[in-house]
């Protein structure tokens, strides 16, 4: 299946909105999920770090 030009490819036979709409949302959601997970892990570690720091200050 060879596309005439990149223009035709992105036009997607006139259905660009639907095809690229669904691919963009899918890719966006999946990337968002991974990014959120990485952020969530960083927040937990920071929180634990602070908790441990506070505990150590109390212990001193």
């Amino acid at each position: 299946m060879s596309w005439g030009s990149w223009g035709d490819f992105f036009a997607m036979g006139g259905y660009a909105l639907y095809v690229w709409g669904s691919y963009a949302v899918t890719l966006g959601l999946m990337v968002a999920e991974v990014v959120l997970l990485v952020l969530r892990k960083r927040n937990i570690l920071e929180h634990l770090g602070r908790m441990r720091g506070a505990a150590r200050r109390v212990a001193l």
Partner: protein
Amino acid sequence: MNVNWFKYSSPQTFFPLAGALAPWFLSAALLLGAVGLYLGFFVAPTDAQQGEAYRIIFIHVPAAWMSMFLYVVMAFWAGVGLVLNTRLSGMMASAVAPTGALFSFIALWTGSLRGKPTWGTWWVWDARLTSELILLFLYFGFMALQAAIDDPRRADKAGAVLALVGVINVPIIYFSVQWWNTLHQGASVSLKSAPTMAATMFAGMIVMALGFWMYSIAAALLRVRCIILERERHADWVAQYVRTLK
């Protein structure tokens, strides 16, 4: 070489393993995704009736498969957690649920976008789309129940009972919706995948499905690491792990 699998059944030993495996699964997902997209866009021919719009099936169908498959995986881990009373299985079940819900939503989104050009309406009461919608409600129910219960152990067990009851009901829901669709509309309006399934089209879908599967494993492993850290925050190995990072 008998690997003692139970060695990895405790959250503490599973935590580093999950950390090591996740990037591999993520890269496998990217690789398979790229191959799938190439097959889908550059190898598969244009469909006779639906023109280029049919190319949405390369994510719609795999996403629908994954949403059902992940519900069964979630119910499996929930069942194991209920029977063997192992904490890690419960965590795995809660780790898989959001990704399953995500795929269920993607299947609905791409399904409605695919319905628009062919049937002119954003929402088609097609049997598969309707049961996908109900599956999304089941996912929300599971996550809402787990969020409402503070004690993690009770949340796991309660979620497990709901997941097991749900997994028994999924086929029943699917067939009753199927029957309901044929009763009210006849079989005319249905999002069957493209009638003449060219080999490359099918190959594209399979590869994308495998890519999604790798992605789900990676996402579940990442999330289970977060859940382990949250639930074991009082454990000393977590404090030790935090210290090593500092």
